[in-house]
Every structure is written in structure tokens, then in C-alpha cells.
């Protein structure tokens, strides 16, 4: 197991180096540069040139890349060109915000997705199956920004049940400990604020969960259908086990490998791709951080930010691979 893990982690290195080359090239080849953002639209060309020099952007590209990589290998993600703050420091709250949101929406997506899929497979070819798959189809096709705005209109503006945006009531001042607000409020032991944080989490988490929920539901359905035909399931039924036990204990466990794969991929995707949800619910997360950096041409932030997201993506999927062994003892990564 240890050797496998090490090998997988080493494989990460070339992937990430390739990643840095691609992002570096892409951000540098789009027109406009950070010196212009900093100098403002009204600055003279001389001033823009001066700032470009200060930032080291007048250097040839390969030298800029070598320097960036040099710092990176020493564990330095660099400073933001626009705010001049170290990215390591800047990124923590954004990353925490996004992870919190993604975890919440994946919880929703997995619970509903898996159950919807099971239900659909169990009542195969019935009106229920049809209905459940329509829901899944809607989940994939509804534009997230539209759903988000509708949620806000219904639950915040019309019914006034839930707050429309943000991570917490702005009137509450909380010094963050871990930057995961749910964890922080528990650590502070303030249930009232915890409830407030949870209320803020509900609408964006639902909006973000629809796509993965739908994908999980469809995979669960097809995987379940396959396993349900297996002999041992029939045997279990014949033994007189309750339907619930047969489905959740015997069938689901064996059907879960492809579902887990999809869960891993979706979690990874959401980590960097929640930009629409984050924008509509003004959730100060990674997606928006990167989006702003791209529109300001903040090269280092784009490069390092994408690197962080990519690393997380790979790690989540590695975790999934490791979880396979827990689900299915036949899967082993050690060579015998």
C-alpha cells in the first residue's frame, strides 16, 4: 500500500509540471497584462512600462517561467502581482470557503443522487423510474445561475426563510480559526451562529449539487441494474432477506465502485468550477478568486491557483482509488 501511494504521488509531479507550462503559456498569451490593471485605464504608457519593469514582466518569457518554477520548487507559490500579498496566505480563506461549499453540496448530491438512482433501478421501467430520470435530466440541464436566482427569489425575497448571499450574517464579527465556518462556530460553541452559517450554506449548496446529483443518480441506476441481475442477489432474495437489506447491503456495495468514481470526479470538478454559484451567492471562494485573477491578468495567482485546484483534483481521485480497496477487498494495489 505504502509503495503504491508513493508511486501515485510521484506520478503527480510530471502532471503538475505539465499543468504549470500550459497555464503559464495560456495566461501570458492572452492580450493585456497586469501592469495595465495596476496602473489603471488612465495611466500614461510610460507609467505602464515602468510598472511592467517593476514586476519583472519585461524579462523574456522563459526566464519568467524558470524563476516561477524555481520559487515553486522551494515551496513558494509567489505573490499576487496585483495585491502584492503572498498567495499562500491569500488563498486559505478562499479554499476553505470552496471546500465547505463543495462538501455540503456533495453530501446533498450523494444522498439524493444515490437514493434516486436506487429507487429508479428498483422500480425499473415504471412511472417512478421515468419520473426519477426526468428529475435527473432536469438536474443536468437547468442552468446553475438561473436556479440560483430563482432560489434567491423564492426563499430569500418572497418567503424570507433564508439569506440570499454570503457565508454568514455580516452583523456578526467572527475571528476565523480554521476558515471553515461550520467548524469554527462549533469550536466557538455558538449554536446560534452555527445555525446562521448553515442557513447561508443551504441555497448555494443546493444550486451547486444539482449537476453532480443528476450524474450520480444516472450512474447509480445503471450500475444497480447490472448488479441486481447477479445470481447472488437472487439468492439473497430467496433466503428471505428483506428488500431493504438486499438493496442497500448486498447490491449497493457491489454497485458502488463506478458511483464512487463519479463522486470523486465531480468533487474535483466542483472545487475549481463553482464560479457561477460563487458569483450569484457572493461566496468568497476559489472560483471567484481565479476568475478575478484572470480578468486582471494576475499571472502568478492564475498559475498557482490553478495548480492548487489541480493538485486537489488529483488527490481527491487518489483518495477514491484508495477507497476502492475498502469497498472491494479483491482490489489490491500491492504487488504480490
Amino acid at each position: 500500500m505504502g509503495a503504491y501511494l508513493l508511486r501515485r504521488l510521484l506520478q503527480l509531479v510530471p502532471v503538475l509540471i505539465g499543468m504549470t507550462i500550459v497555464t503559464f503559456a495560456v495566461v501570458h498569451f492572452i492580450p493585456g497584462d497586469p501592469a495595465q490593471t495596476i496602473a489603471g485605464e488612465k495611466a500614461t504608457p510610460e507609467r505602464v512600462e515602468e510598472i511592467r519593469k517593476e514586476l519583472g514582466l519585461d524579462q523574456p518569457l522563459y526566464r519568467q517561467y524558470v524563476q516561477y518554477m524555481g520559487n515553486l520548487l522551494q515551496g513558494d507559490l509567489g505573490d499576487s502581482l496585483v495585491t502584492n500579498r503572498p498567495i499562500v496566505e491569500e488563498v486559505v480563506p478562499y479554499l476553505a470557503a470552496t471546500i465547505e461549499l463543495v462538501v455540503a453540496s456533495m453530501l446533498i448530491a450523494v444522498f439524493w443522487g444515490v437514493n434516486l438512482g436506487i429507487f429508479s433501478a428498483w422500480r425499473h421501467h415504471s412511472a417512478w423510474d421515468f419520473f426519477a430520470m426526468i428529475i435527473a435530466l432536469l438536474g443536468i440541464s437547468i442552468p446553475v445561475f438561473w436556479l440560483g436566482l430563482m432560489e434567491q427569489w423564492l426563499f430569500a425575497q418572497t418567503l424570507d426563510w433564508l439569506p440570499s448571499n454570503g457565508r454568514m450574517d455580516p452583523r456578526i464579527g467572527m475571528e476565523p480559526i480554521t476558515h471553515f465556518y461550520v467548524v469554527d462556530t462549533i469550536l466557538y460553541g455558538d449554536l446560534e451562529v452555527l445555525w446562521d452559517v448553515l442557513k447561508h450554506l443551504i441555497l448555494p449548496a443546493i444550486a451547486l449539487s444539482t449537476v453532480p446529483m443528476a450524474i450520480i443518480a444516472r450512474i447509480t441506476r445503471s450500475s444497480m441494474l447490472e448488479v441486481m441481475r447477479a445470481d447472488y442477489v437472487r439468492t439473497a432474495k430467496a433466503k428471505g432477506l428483506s428488500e431493504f437489506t438486499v438493496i442497500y447491503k448486498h447490491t449497493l456495495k457491489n454497485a458502488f465502485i463506478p458511483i464512487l468514481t463519479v463522486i470523486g470526479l465531480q468533487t474535483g470538478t466542483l472545487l475549481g468550477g463553482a464560479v457561477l454559484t460563487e458569483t450569484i451567492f457572493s461566496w468568497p471562494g476559489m472560483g471567484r478568486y481565479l476568475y478575478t485573477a484572470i480578468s486582471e491578468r494576475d499571472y502568478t495567482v492564475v498559475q498557482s491557483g490553478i495548480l492548487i485546484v489541480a493538485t486537489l483534483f488529483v488527490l481527491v481521485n487518489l483518495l477514491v482509488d484508495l477507497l476502492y480497496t475498502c469497498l472491494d477487498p479483491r482490489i489490491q494495489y500491492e504487488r504480490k
Partner: protein
Amino acid sequence: MEKRLMRWSSWVMLFLCFSLIVSCHSGSIQKDQGSMLIYGRGADAKSLDPSQVTDGESFRVTQMIFDTLVEYKDQNTEIQPCLAEKWESSPDGKEWIFYLRKNVKFHDGTPFNAEAVVFNFKRWMDREHPQHKGAIAFTYYPDMFAGFKGDPNHVIQSVTAIDEYTVKFVLNRPLGPFLANLAMPPFGIGSPTAIKKDPVQFGEKPVGTGPYKLREWKKNDMITVERNEDYWKKGFPKTDKIIFKSIPDNAARFTALKSGDIDLMDGMNPSDAIQVEKDPKLQLFKQQGMNVAYLAFNMRKKPLDHPQFRLAINHAVDKKRLISNFYANLAEPAVNPYPPFMLGYNDELKDHSFDLGKAKRLIEEAGLKGVKLKLYTPQDPRPYMPNGKKIAEFLKEDFKKIGVQVEIVTFEWKTYLDKVKSGEHDMALFGWNGDNGDPDNFLYVLLDKTNAREQNSSNIAFYTNEEVHQLLIKAQSTVDRTKREQLYRQAQAIIKKENPWVPLVHATVPIAGKASIRGFYPHPTGGYKLDQVEIIEK
């Protein structure tokens, strides 16, 4: 059994770790009492050191924390005293003496005096100054005072303290908009103690003399400022605390206002303004637009160098319909390059009538029928142009009727700037937000020949009229108001005759707030004095 023990012990460990973190952490949760205003806006500030930034969102906050020597009046761009109680200038406009307000303190207790003013100016203008550093870069200073100390055109020769409360400025040449420049938010006076301590960190921990001091900044989320108990203006600020909340999506921000999560918001879709006016729980504030949206002709290219062609296009733009279709009537048609409430606006000039027949005739006479041109337009909404692409399509229809074929070309904002400023376009939709309320800031920047450059040109019509240039230079270096007024009127008359642009509109900026808000005056510069705002719940 062993397994269960393991599980239990790991839970206990986890609990211990948590308690350790909690006990080590000195932070707390505070639930606020007192009056509060939540201001919703599209983006966060970049830095809170006003000398380092150029974006309105940063200034929106620094204006609450810092005061300037002089300031604009509540509803126009005339100058009134602020940290300087009064001032005088020599007849040639090269020497200025400012008498400062006494008994003013920075938020950190440092006394405000002439030394503090001198320190700030030296930090901004002298590249060799030990604190000539900051989080980002000094940008507005070189823009407004023509470079730094030692540069050939630099305006300020020296700043000295005559006594504790008197400061003297000596200029290398008179500068017409000198006072207007000093009133701009980037020239807010900061505490020398705090700046000397760490000029870079000053952008995170700003210290000024303003009505509010910074309490907390959650990046990309919100900035909280709280009342400065020792503020020199007695009875202000009216509200204990202001929260600047970033809500990037316009529609979501409007929903937040309607559901009561925020009290005041800017950056509205013009079409939402109608809803606000109908809603008894809300009120609409209209900020006079110190801006202009225009269609620029690239006069370096054919046939745009042909005066008759430019006149024809001017006759082919229906500004009235433009305003009703795309601005929800929140704009006024532009005749000149800057709005009527500013100094020296030439109200004798009449606009070219919308007359497609005449336009068509002019095009035919010039033998330009069937000409094909590229019309550049930005993708992103700007305050002066909510939907550039739609406007371009609208213009295209009418241009077709007079025999001019137009292909619309569009880019994302940063790319767009790059392309247009290097003169790639034939015609381009563009605009300008004024900085200091002075006509120089419009005419010189947008239409003077020195600003028609190969790269990064701010004069994107590439209009190079020597007579206009002479008038503008003269107006720039005159302090006498009436003289300047005349010079600008003359310049506008020439520009109106030569038509380097089609001036489209001056857009009114809609701002929405709860009906219970009092004391909010949206200033034409876009800088708001929120210290006068209060919420009166009935």
C-alpha cells in the same frame, strides 16, 4: 473489542485537538449592536492605501477612512474646505498656501499637522523617499501631477511646512485643475506614524483622519468600518458602522436589497430602476453622470478622415431611441465631450439632428456609398454603456440605411482596451468616467494630440488638431476660472465642427436603497460621503 477501543480513542484525540485549538485561540464572536448600513457593490477593494489604487471600489472605502486637504461640495464638483480650512494662491498660480484645521487626530492618535501633509506628498512624489513603497504602485499621483519629482514635466516643485498648521506648495508651472486634483480620493492624508511603521502593510491597515476607521476586512467578501469617535466634524458620522459587501452579480445584489439583506446598492441594471421606483419599500437615487459614452472615428484611417463622412454618421445616430432602448431613459443625449454641469460647457452648440435622408445624401456626395467598416464594441457592461453589443447592433441597422456596411467586432474588456488603444478599429464604442470634475480631465485626455499615441492611446479618435491643442494647454496652465471657461468653450466649438466622435450620452447612474435611508447624496464623481447617511425606521 480492540477495534472499538481504537475508534473511541481517536474520537477522544480529535476532541482534545479541537479543545486545544479553541483554548489557544484568543478570537471571539461578536454580535453587533448599534446603527449599521450595509452597502452592496460589485467587487471588493484592492488595497486601502488610496495612493496605490485606481479602482472605484477601493476609493469607496478609503474615502470613509481618509480626508483630503479640500473636498467637493455635496452635489457638484465645486471645491470646499476639508482638512485645509482656507487657502490662497499667488496671482500667477505658482504658489499655494494652505491653512490647516487644528485639533485633528489620526485614528492612531498621531496629531494632524503641516508635517504630516508634507510627509504624505513627499512619499507620493519622491522616488527616493524611504516610504515611497506600497502594496501596489503609485498611480494617480504621476497621472495628475505629470510624473514624479525629477521628471521633466512634474508640476510640484516643493511642499514645505511654514509653521505647524501652514503648508506651502510651489509649482513649476501653474496647473488649472490643481485644487480639483487635491480633492480627489487618492490624495487622502495618511498617518505618518502608521506609514513609517510599514508602508506596504498600510494598504491592509490604513490609518487616516476620516469619519470611520477600519475594523475588519474579509477579502472578496466584506469590509467593515466603524465610527471614529474623535472625528473633527461634530455630529458625524450618523451611523455607527458601515459594511461594504461585495455581491458580484447585479441581479443577485438587487435580490439582496429587496429581501432586506443590504440597505444600499450600486451597479444596477438600468431596467431594474423602474422596479425600484414602483416599490414603496425602496427609493431610487440618480447620480448625475460625470461621464460620456461615444462612438470614436479612427481618423488615421480612410474614409474616416473625411469630414463629410463623419458628419453623415453623426446625422445617422438616433440618441433618443438609444436612451429609451438601452438606458431605460436614465441618460441624456451628449452634444459635447463632457456633461453640461461642468465648467465651461458650451451650451450654444446645437447637436446634429437625426436625419437619415441628409446622412445618406452626404455619403453619396462624398462617393462613399457601400463602404465597409469595422465597429468595435466592448462585451462587458460599463457604467456609461450597459450593453455595448446591443448598441452596436442598433447603430448598424441605421448605418445600413445610409449605405454604410458595418461589421461588429467584440472582445472581453482587457483585450478590448488593448486593441482599441492601439488603433485597430475603424470605429469604436467607448466612454470615460471623469476623475476630478475638471474639463481638462475630459478634453485633454480624450482629444488632445499628445494623447494620440501608437500604443495605449487615450485619444482613440487619433484626433490631432493644433488649435485645440493650444487652447487646452493654455487652459491647463491658467488658474483664472473665467479665462479657462472661455478657452474650453472655444475648444468645444472646434471639436463640434470637426466631429472626431459621435458623442452619444451622459449616463445617469442609478443607485437603489431602502426607503428609510436619509442623507445620501450620490456625487457626480461617484465618491459618496456616507458619513451623512442614516437609516430612519418608522
